[in-house]
């Protein structure tokens, strides 16, 4: 009865406390901090050899010229297409294999040594080998991104499935669900919070994979631009790429976090209540 609550609160003369000090505006503090940093960088950057360091206004100019010439949008599209295809494949295969591994002890035991070995090897080390097999084009980049992103999704999905309590599965059995129905209507939804956490880990790794592959192949994409302008000592343009990659990472991780929170909402509130 909120009406009664409000009346009592009014009678007692109580009121919600308002934000008063600067501590209550963290966004203002964040903005101030960033502006200070940019000012210091601008002043210091103008005094240093432009080969080694640049400054914010020069970066903005470089960004504008890269956008105007169409080079940045084109290469970015190139990178993002590869990323989307490869990441999509790792989500589909990672969740699929993860479900099977989580449900079947036999499959799990059979695949485990290979997966652990591949996961433990730094994927960067495989890149030169993959270039020999798949050339320098789209394929090799997609394979590298896939290898970076696949394992966290696979491993999280499998452990999410193993984490589904036997009493939950029993509910499915008691209502005569077939194996398939138990997998799709009980196990999969119960494992979604784990799967989403795996996807969030994987998206960060996928971006790393993308840049690594493009740095090695150095033909197209944002990573290739990084190599190119590095070789030309165009520091401001290199910074543009670095900042774009940073923003891309933040945006994608944020997006998956939002998605994760929406899809696993029941889990979060459940935890909060316990």
């Amino acid at each position: 009865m909120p009406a009664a609550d409000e009346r009592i609160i009014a009678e007692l003369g109580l009121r919600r406390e308002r934000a008063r000090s600067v501590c209550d505006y963290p966004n203002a503090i964040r903005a101030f901090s960033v502006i200070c940093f940019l000012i210091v960088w601008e002043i210091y950057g103008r005094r240093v050899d432009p080969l080694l360091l640049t400054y914010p206004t020069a970066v903005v100019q470089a960004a504008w010229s890269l956008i105007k010439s169409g080079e940045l949008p084109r290469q970015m599209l190139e990178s993002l297409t590869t990323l989307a295809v490869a990441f999509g494949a790792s989500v589909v295969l990672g969740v699929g294999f993860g479900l099977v591994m989580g449900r079947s002890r036999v499959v799990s035991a059979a695949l485990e040594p290979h997966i652990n070995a591949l996961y433990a090897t730094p994927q960067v080390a495989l890149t030169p080998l993959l270039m020999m097999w798949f050339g320098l084009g789209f394929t090799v980049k997609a394979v590298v991104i896939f290898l970076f992103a696949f394992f966290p999704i696979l491993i999280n999905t499998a452990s999410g499935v193993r984490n589904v309590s036997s009493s939950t599965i029993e509910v499915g059995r008691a209502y005569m669900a077939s194996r398939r129905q138990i997998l799709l209507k009980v196990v999969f939804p119960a494992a979604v919070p784990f799967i989403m956490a795996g996807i969030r880990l994987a998206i960060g790794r996928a971006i790393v994979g993308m840049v690594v592959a493009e740095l090695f192949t150095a033909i197209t994409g944002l990573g290739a631009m990084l190599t190119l302008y590095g070789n030309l000592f165009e520091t401001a343009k290199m910074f543009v790429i670095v900042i774009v990659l940073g923003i891309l990472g933040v945006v994608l991780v944020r997006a998956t976090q939002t998605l994760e929170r929406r899809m696993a909402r029941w889990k979060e509130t459940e935890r909060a209540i316990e």
Partner: protein
Amino acid sequence: MLEVRQLSKVFFEQNDPRRPGLVALHNVSFSVRNKEFVCLLGPSGCGKTTLIRIIAGLIRADRGEIRVNGKPVTAPGRDRCMVFQQFGLLPWRTVLGNVEFGLEIEGMGRAEREKIAREYLALVGLSGFESYYPHQISGGMQQRVGIARALSKKPDILLMDEPFGAVDAQTREQLQEELLKIWNKTDTTVIFVTHSIDESIYLSDRVIIMQSRPGRIKEEVKIDLPRPRWEGDVKADPRFAELRAQVRESLRT
């Protein structure tokens, strides 16, 4: 009609072959008439939960058999529905979605199962809570969802494994009364596991008292209290006190 004949079940420790097996049930036999309300009463470890799980078809007996209407059962079937101690709700489904679950598994169409689910939610007094998630409602309400879900399948036998063990005492009494009213409206046979003497006497036509090590039936006590029992104070009836003393004595020795 449910018949349980010479049922035995032994649990072996999976990881430790040196440990001896535990006899959870030994030669358990009883039968339940249609529309009868029977309580399985006993201390922890007497095998009452094992027994109801075998009847539900969730685990298999090692010896003996169970027949429902003359047909032997070894797996879950649509003639028996289970209400779980921890409610067994699926937390990602709404109240309505949880009640629909059993019908959905059967392959019933969306519109039809929604209609039936709403009917049974109304029966347990949860109309208006369809779109809530289990964690947003109280334990007592969650168990009503569990009961609605089981009843929506129109089972011949409703199996209840300590269904009110996880709710507070007041809610428990309220749920007992409501269960009797709901049972009165349906044609269901109920097998109800509990370790509460009062609960077993208040609810049932017959209390089957079990003993542990090995799990077996000690005695059956017929509850001849008049029905309906929600009118007046049955628990203050002198006959109730006599039955309570009788059951308690039987459990003690």
